[in-house]
Every structure is written in structure tokens, then in C-alpha cells.
């Protein structure tokens, strides 16, 4: 610093001494991102109006300059005009960098496009801002459901868990604004804790190909990104209010964004949703109300060659679970399943009673990045997540208002990533990641811990390389390694410990015996490798062929390892095994895509073979003082999923368009050749869309969704003796419900209310014909029909 000051002093003194005015200033102007020469850039010296342009080589020359300080304005059609201060002393050489992508960035906010590709050799499905807004009163799962190959595992209308190509829960990784969601996602009745309104773009990758995010996504990766903010002086926002007929609720969502030319930006978003009991076509679904409160804030500074951003979001919800689904043992199940209507139907209410879930998920992230001169972009990220899950059951006595599950999951992650961008033909992405996680199940619930106390450490590293072999061929190659260490404290029932022979096999992990329980301290290590190899070939103008092989390894989750007892919401006893090893998936995916204006389609067949696949299946019926319960035990086997997703789109004319989707997946346990449970049945979606941009952007669509009956399922029914009738009855958990067809209507129209504001009014009617149906993938299908007709009226103001 001192030297610099000295230099300045020296130079300025020289300037005053000799006034030499035949200096030249030469240099080049380059793109700050990839170092490319910029042609046709105008450079103007302030106050003199002397101006020159860069030539084809990106070089400019000013002549006849004095030893002085000049202000030079540099402008280019695709860049933001920028001013620089230049000190000229004799013949000077000075180069400038411009933000060449400003035009592209402005488009981002308009079209919601240009989010970078996450993988080069897998066709990604995306939902942009406009499409996401149609789901603003729903859940993330509802939005994803609109993509081919995605279905959802539901527990009522509030818990919607995405299933990608037949796989769900721990096999799906969700990236929320660059943060891997850690929110007890193993449970079938645990939905992702993300507010759909906080998202600006949603990307789905079917499979584990995007290794920069994770190596264990045997099912797929869902990437949720906040809306992009352009570097320009602007203040904009939107507010929408929706009325929901089914559930008699309301939803409000608002976002305001301020950004400045100097790079600073802020965006604040909040949403509220409150509904009461929903209705099936013929009856009320008691205790299915939802209350949701979410907010997020983003503050950042973006200079293209460096930047920093802080993001925080809080997601808080309260979900009622259908009252009639809370039952005791097998005898109660027989009653619940046999009854044509839910066993409990009360009057309409906004109350959210037990059984219910209350989840709070907080997420914070700080990311900083720097463009390293022509080498690439280096970023560093720290994120923190705090997930608190409370589940309330119907309880007795003093415990009546106490949660029966109270889990607190804290996760800290640090990562650093590097991405090259110097070359147009090949890119390298690489990074390392470290994660610390702690789960604390509060023993104050008075119910044995479902998930034990544990601390978990992850360390991972990856590298992905892609190259354009020729104009039409891209090859992608990547590898990742993850090490996971778990330090667990788990109480086992002595009777279970001994029945599993753990007392002989694993005596070393016993810490102490407490009454009829044994405290153990298992320390588990997993070494997981994952890889991807793929190619994309473009031919005949609009055709693209994608091929990808991905190898994914997933460590067993705490529920698969440590379950040991009654899982109340499923009315069954679940048993895990702490000796499980990681499951390893091999997925081959092929995609043929034609992106033609007259007819576009994509066909995506795949085959996913998973070794040591962890599944749960019924093995026994256990007699307890509370009656008989079915025992489900986790087991490892080799599984295979084969399927195809087809998308097609055909514009009849400029205003009318047909969209089609078809998905089929078959899953088998290869050691027994039995079908896998909960495989989504084949389904068709056909839609006709009318859109007239000349008439206030009027958009009307009618969608027909046909879901076939799942004919391949494992028979997990069992017999139970019912004393009051003196008969044995079959508890039919497995028979899938019939096929069904739903019609959904959607419309919206824009009104320009002033120069800067626009009003959009939308009307959506789902299940237009009020069809009674049951969905094989809904956990409540045994007890009640799915939702009936719903009118949704949305008024949105953009300003």
C-alpha cells in the first residue's frame, strides 16, 4: 500500500513537471466471463468527445494524449456502459473488461430462462416462474407432479412427496437455493419443507448425473432456485391472493425485489396459507386443515467477477392428518378399510387437531464467489439448517397435548466449488464438501425415540468434466467420493436386542443396560463412490440424443438402520437393521428429443438396477396387549426399475396447442421376482391450451389425466382373527384402487393497470367433474376418497 502511494506521488509529480501530449493509449476490451475479445466497443474520453472503436481483434488506440488522468466511457450494445479512470504516462497500455451478458440477464427476468444446465447429458425438466405460479397454493410436490416421470406419495393434500421414476424419500435429493435439504425426508409421510412461492425455477434431473450436488440420488435431484435478479436499477414486486373453495381457505403470497446498478440487491418474500377441512366428493375429510407461514430474504452483491449473497428462509407449517386414519391394531384396520366412508366424519372446522404435524425448517446460506482471471469461477459456501418436527397423536391423560415425536435436526455444511469457463469446448467442475449433522430426539415426549440421537460427519469431493468433441457431440464424465461417519446413541429393547442375536454379534457397542432397555453406541462408516458418463449428440437440426450412465451410492438412512417399534401413523411395527451397507444404483438413461416448432417430443427410456436396495415388507403379525400389529422389516435385495417417459407437444395453430405426457415404470425385486411396492401406475396426461397474447395474454387450458390401475403389486395382505365376529378377516393393505380419470381446468388473463403494474386474474378448477377416486400412492386411500372439486381464484398484482 505504501509503495503504491509512493508511485502515485511520483507519477503525479512527473505529470506536473513535463506536459507531453503525444502519448498513445492502447489496449483491448474483453468479456469478463470468458476473456473473449469484444468487437465494436466504443470508447469515449469524457470532455473531449474523442472516441474510438475496438477492431476485430478487440484492440483500440487513442493518440495525442497528455500525461494526465482521463475518464473513459466504454459502451457496447450488449454491455452495460461503464466508466473508467485511466492515468496516462507516456505510451500506456490498458485493458478493460466488460460485463457482456447484461442483455442475457435482462432476459432472464422476463422469460425465467437461462438457468444454467446442471448436467450436459441428461435431459432436464424444468418449471419456470410462470409455470410455478400456477401452483402457488399447492406444494412443491404438486408442481413436480406436472412433469412426466414424477408422481407423488401423498398423505392427504398437505404431505406430497415426489416420486421420480419410481423412487422417493432418501433416494431423492432436493437442493434448495444451493443447499441440500436435510429435513428427515426418510419418512413416507414427511413432505419436503419448501415453500413453492420461494422458488423462481425448478429443475428435475432423473437420476444421479449431477454429481456436483450429491452422489446418492439414486432416484433423482430436484433443484429449487430463487428468482434471478438482474444488475440494474429497479424495484419490483408482486402480490397474489388466492381463494380456495375446497378447504375454504385463503393463500397470500408477496415478493419485493430491489436491485441496483452497483450490484447490490435485496429480495424479500413471504407467504401465508390457511385452509380448513377439505372435502371428498361425498363427504368431509375431517382434520385435514393446513396452516403455513413462510418467509425468505436474500441480500447480495453481484459484480460478475465477484459477489456475495446471504439467504435465509423459514418454513413453518401445521398439517392435520385425516382423523379417520388414526387407528390401532389389525382389528381396527379391518373396520377402517371395510367402511365405505371414513370412520370419523365431523362438522367442517378450521381446527387442526391430533393427529397432526408441525414442522419448522430454517435455512441460512452465505455464498461468495470470485471469477479468477480467465481460469474460472471459485465459490465458497456455508449453510446452516435447523429442522424441528413435531408429530401429535391421539393420546391419553397428561400426555394429551404433548407431541409424540419431537426431532431436532441441525446441519452445517461448508463447501467450495470451482468451475472453469475459459474454454468454449470443455468445462471442469470440481469441489469439496464437508457436513456436520446432529439429530436430537427429545425424550420428553414419553414415547420411545423413533430416530435415535446421532451425530453424522460427511466429507465429499467431486470432479465433472465435459467437452465438445465436435459441434454435435458433447461428452461428460464425472466422479465423486463421499465418506460418512455416524456416531449413534440408540436404546434397544432388550427383548429385540436378544431376538436379533445382537447380544452375541455386537456386544462391543453396548454402553449400559437400563431396565428393559439397552443403550448402545454404534459407530458406522460408509465409503460411497459415484460416477457419471454420458454423451449428447445433435443431429438433423432439431434432434438430440442423450445417453447417460450414472452410478449412485446411498448410505442407509437412520430409519432403515434403527427403526424398532410401532410406527403409529402407519399402524405397523417397523424393524430396521444396523448392519445394512450402502445401496448402489446403476442407471442407464437414453433420451431422444426433437425440438421442432411444428412438433416437439422427447422419449426417455431408462433402466435402473440397484444392488442392496433397501425395502420394507411385511414378515409377521405380532401380538401385543393393544391387539395384533403387522410387522414390517427392512431388507436388502437387488431391485430393478424399468420405465419410459414420453412428452409431446403439437401446436395446432398460433394460439392452440396440444400437450401430451405418458409415464410408465415397472419395479421388481430381482431376488424374489416380486413387484416392488408403491410403484406409480402408468398414467397419461393430455392437455389443450389456448393462448392469445393479443388478447391480454388470455390462457385457457383443459387437462385430462388418466391414471391406470396398478396391476403389479406385492400381496402384503394378512389374516387376523376378530373376536366379536368370531371370524378371520383379511386386512387388505395391498390391493390397489381402480383406474381413474380427472379433468382440470385452468385459465388466466392479464390486465395492464398502469405503466408499471399489471394484474393477472386466474381461475383454476381441479377435479372438474367431482370424481370420486382413490390414488394407489396415497397413504390415506385405505380410509377415504381423494379430494373432490376445487375452485381456485387467484388475483395477482405485478408492480
Amino acid at each position, binding site marked *: 500500500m505504501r509503495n503504491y502511494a509512493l508511485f502515485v506521488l511520483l507519477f503525479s509529480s512527473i505529470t506536473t513537471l513535463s506536459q507531453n501530449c503525444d502519448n498513445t493509449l492502447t489496449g483491448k476490451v474483453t468479456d469478463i466471463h470468458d476473456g473473449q475479445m469484444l468487437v465494436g466497443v466504443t470508447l469515449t474520453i469524457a470532455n473531449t468527445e474523442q472516441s474510438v472503436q475496438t477492431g476485430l481483434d478487440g484492440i483500440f488506440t487513442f493518440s495525442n494524449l497528455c500525461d494526465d488522468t482521463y475518464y473513459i466511457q466504454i459502451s457496447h450494445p450488449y454491455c452495460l456502459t461503464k466508466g473508467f479512470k485511466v492515468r496516462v504516462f507516456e505510451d500506456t497500455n490498458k485493458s478493460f473488461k466488460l460485463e457482456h451478458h447484461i442483455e442475457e440477464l435482462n432476459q432472464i427476468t422476463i422469460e425465467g430462462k437461462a438457468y444454467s444446465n446442471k448436467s450436459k447429458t441428461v435431459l432436464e425438466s424444468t418449471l419456470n416462474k410462470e409455470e410455478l405460479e400456477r401452483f402457488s397454493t399447492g406444494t412443491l410436490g404438486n408442481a413436480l407432479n406436472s412433469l412426466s416421470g414424477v408422481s407423488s406419495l401423498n398423505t392427504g393434500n398437505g404431505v406430497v412427496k415426489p416420486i421420480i421414476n419410481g423412487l422417493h424419500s432418501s433416494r431423492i435429493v432436493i437442493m434448495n437455493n444451493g443447499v441440500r435439504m436435510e429435513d428427515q425426508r426418510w419418512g413416507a409421510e414427511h413432505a419436503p419443507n419448501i415453500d413453492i412461492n420461494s422458488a423462481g425455477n425448478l429443475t428435475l434431473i432423473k437420476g444421479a448425473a449431477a454429481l456436483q450436488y450429491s452422489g446418492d440420488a439414486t432416484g433423482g435431484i430436484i433443484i429449487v432456485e430463487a428468482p434471478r435478479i438482474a444488475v440494474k436499477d429497479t424495484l419490483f414486486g408482486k402480490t397474489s391472493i388466492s381463494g380456495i373453495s375446497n378447504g375454504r381457505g385463503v393463500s397470500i403470497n408477496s415478493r419485493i425485489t430491489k436491485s441496483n446498478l452497483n450490484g447490490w440487491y435485496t429480495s424479500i418474500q413471504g407467504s401465508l396459507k390457511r385452509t380448513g377441512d377439505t372435502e371428498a366428493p361425498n363427504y368431509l375429510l375431517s382434520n385435514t386443515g393446513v396452516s403455513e407461514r413462510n418467509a425468505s430474504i436474500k441480500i447480495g452483491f453481484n459484480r460478475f467477477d465477484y459477489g456475495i449473497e446471504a439467504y435465509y428462509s423459514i418454513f413453518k407449517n401445521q398439517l392435520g392428518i385425516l382423523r379417520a386414519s388414526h387407528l390401532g*391394531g389389525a382389528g381396527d384396520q379391518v373396520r377402517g378399510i371395510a367402511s365405505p366412508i371414513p370412520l370419523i366424519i365431523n362438522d367442517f372446522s378450521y381446527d387442526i387437531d391430533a393427529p397432526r404435524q408441525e414442522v419448522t425448517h430454517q435455512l441460512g446460506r452465505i455464498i461468495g464467489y470470485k471469477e479468477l482471471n480467465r481460469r474460472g469461477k471459485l465459490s465458497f459456501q456455508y449453510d446452516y439448517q435447523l429442522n424441528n418436527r413435531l408429530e401429535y397423536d391421539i393420546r391419553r391423560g397428561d400426555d394429551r397435548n404433548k407431541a409424540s415425536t419431537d426431532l431436532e435436526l441441525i446441519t452445517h455444511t*461448508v463447501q467450495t466449488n470451482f468451475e472453469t469457463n475459459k474454454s468454449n469446448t470443455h468445462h471442469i467442475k470440481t469441489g469439496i464438501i464437508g457436513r456436520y449433522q446432529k439429530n436430537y430426539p427429545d425424550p420428553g415426549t414419553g414415547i420411545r425415540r423413533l430416530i435415535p440421537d446421532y451425530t453424522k460427519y460427511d466429507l465429499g469431493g467431486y470432479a465433472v468434466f465435459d467437452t465438445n468433441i465436435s459441434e454435435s457431440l458433447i461428452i461428460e464424465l464425472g466422479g465423486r467420493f463421499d465418506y460418512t461417519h455416524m456416531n449413534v446413541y440408540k436404546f434397544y429393547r432388550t427383548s429385540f436386542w436378544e431376538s436379533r442375536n445382537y447380544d452375541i454379534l455386537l456386544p462391543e457397542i453396548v454402553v449400559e443396560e437400563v431396565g428393559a432397555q439397552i443403550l448402545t453406541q454404534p459407530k458406522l462408516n460408509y465409503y460411497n463412490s459415484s460416477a457419471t458418463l454420458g454423451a449428447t449428440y445433435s443431429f438433423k437440426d432439431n434432434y438430440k440424443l442423450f445417453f447417460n450412465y450414472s452410478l449412485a451410492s446411498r448410505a442407509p438412512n437412520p430409519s432403515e438402520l434403527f427403526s424398532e417399534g410401532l410406527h403409529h401413523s402407519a399402524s405397523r411395527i417397523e424393524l430396521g437393521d444396523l448392519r445394512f451397507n450402502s445401496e448402489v444404483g446403476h442407471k442407464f438413461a437414453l433420451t431422444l428429443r426433437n425440438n421442432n416448432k411444428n412438433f416437439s417430443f422427447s422419449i426417455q427410456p431408462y433402466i435402473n438396477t440397484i444392488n442392496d436396495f433397501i425395502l420394507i415388507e411385511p414378515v409377521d403379525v405380532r401380538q401385543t396387549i393393544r391387539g395384533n400389529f403387522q410387522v414390517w422389516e427392512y431388507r436388502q435385495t437387488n431391485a430393478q426399475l424399468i420405465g419410459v417417459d414420453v412428452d409431446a407437444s403439437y401446436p395446432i395453430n398460433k394460439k392452440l396447442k396440444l400437450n401430451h405426457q405418458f409415464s410408465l415404470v415397472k419395479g421388481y425385486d430381482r431376488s424374489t421376482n416380486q413387484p416392488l411396492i408403491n410403484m406409480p401406475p402408468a398414467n397419461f396426461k393430455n392437455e389443450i391450451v389456448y393462448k392469445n397474447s393479443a388478447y391480454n395474454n388470455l390462457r385457457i387450458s383443459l387437462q385430462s389425466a388418466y391414471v391406470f390401475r396398478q396391476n403389479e403389486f406385492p400381496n402384503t395382505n394378512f389374516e387376523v382373527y376378530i373376536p*366379536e365376529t368370531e371370524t378371520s378377516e383379511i386386512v387388505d393393505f395391498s390391493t390397489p384402487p381402480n383406474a381413474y380419470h380427472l379433468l382440470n381446468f385452468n385459465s388466466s388473463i392479464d390486465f395492464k393497470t398502469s405503466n408499471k403494474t399489471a394484474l393477472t386474474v386466474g381461475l383454476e378448477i381441479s377435479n372438474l367433474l367431482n370424481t370420486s377416486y382413490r390414488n394407489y400412492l396415497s397413504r390415506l386411500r385405505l380410509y377415504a376418497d381423494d379430494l373432490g372439486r376445487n375452485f381456485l381464484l387467484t388475483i395477482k398484482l405485478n408492480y
Partner: protein
Amino acid sequence: MKIVQFLSTAIFASALIFSCSSDDPDPVVEEEVITTMTITLEPFDDQISSVILQTQDLDGDGPDIPEVTVSGNLLENKMYYGSIVLLNETEDPAENMTEEIEEESLEHQFFYTIENGLDAITEYNDVDPDLNPIGLDFVLTANAVSSGSITFTLRHMPTKPNTGLEDAGGETDIEATFELSIQ
């Protein structure tokens, strides 16, 4: 770069703070569990002995099945006072759960199902504040010589009043079957 340095320091510090607790967790006290149901059948006629039925399931939904004992046989043409005591023996000392049922009698009811040829009848001998039966106390009449079984079912949140298990609804908290003989 300073930002990166600052961040890494901050993260390191927070990681240290959050990773410092490693005390063994406490076992959960299961306050709500019913492990043991004892039914005492005390004869009206004090010349003959009582019969005690018990089911005990100390590991709850663990692998051990409930231990069911019947102390003896009933005698023909005799009437017995029946009373039910519920215990939570996972706690030490064992907690009497009967009181909890009495306090929440509006939300609970016992049902008795006689089957497989046992020639006996039961009658409720207690009422909740709405004058509907609870079933902790009952009267059992043993008729002719026979044998069969009797099942005791405790329902939580049944519809009250009801005509029996068929329309009672609710959730089963206890279901235990005993083999009995009348001599």
C-alpha cells in the same frame, strides 16, 4: 479473499460450538403405556374362590408376546363381580393407569366379547358422568358347564352411547383374550 477467510473462521468456530456436547442420552420414560391388565372375578358367594385373569406385555410392541394367565375355573350358576386394574410396569414403581381411564371415562369404554361356546353373560356395573358404561366394573354370570373364551377390548374415543363393538368406533387401546372354563 478476506470474505472467504472470515467465513471459514466463522464456520470453524460454529462447528466447534455445536459439536461439544456428547453426554449419553436419557432413556425415555413411557408414561402412557399399559403393560398389564388384571381382571379380578370375585364371587358374590364368598365360600368359593376368586378367579384372576392377567395379561402382561412388558416389552409393549417388542417381540415378546403378552403373557396370559388364568388362575382357575369359574363355577356354574355363580355370579362374579369383575373389576379391571391397569398398570404401567415400565415405570418403577409401577403406575396405576386405571385412574387415568376413570378420569377420562367419557372417552373410554371396555367391551366384553364371549365366544366359542362359553356359557356366560356380562353386564356393566359402572357409569361415566353421562350415565353411559365405562366397563372397569362389571358383573359376570357363569351359567352351565362349558368352556370358551372372553375378550376384553378397551376403546379410546368410542361413540358413546353405542350398542356394542360394532358401532362403537374409536381406537383399540387393549385387546386381550382369555380361555375360561365353567365347572
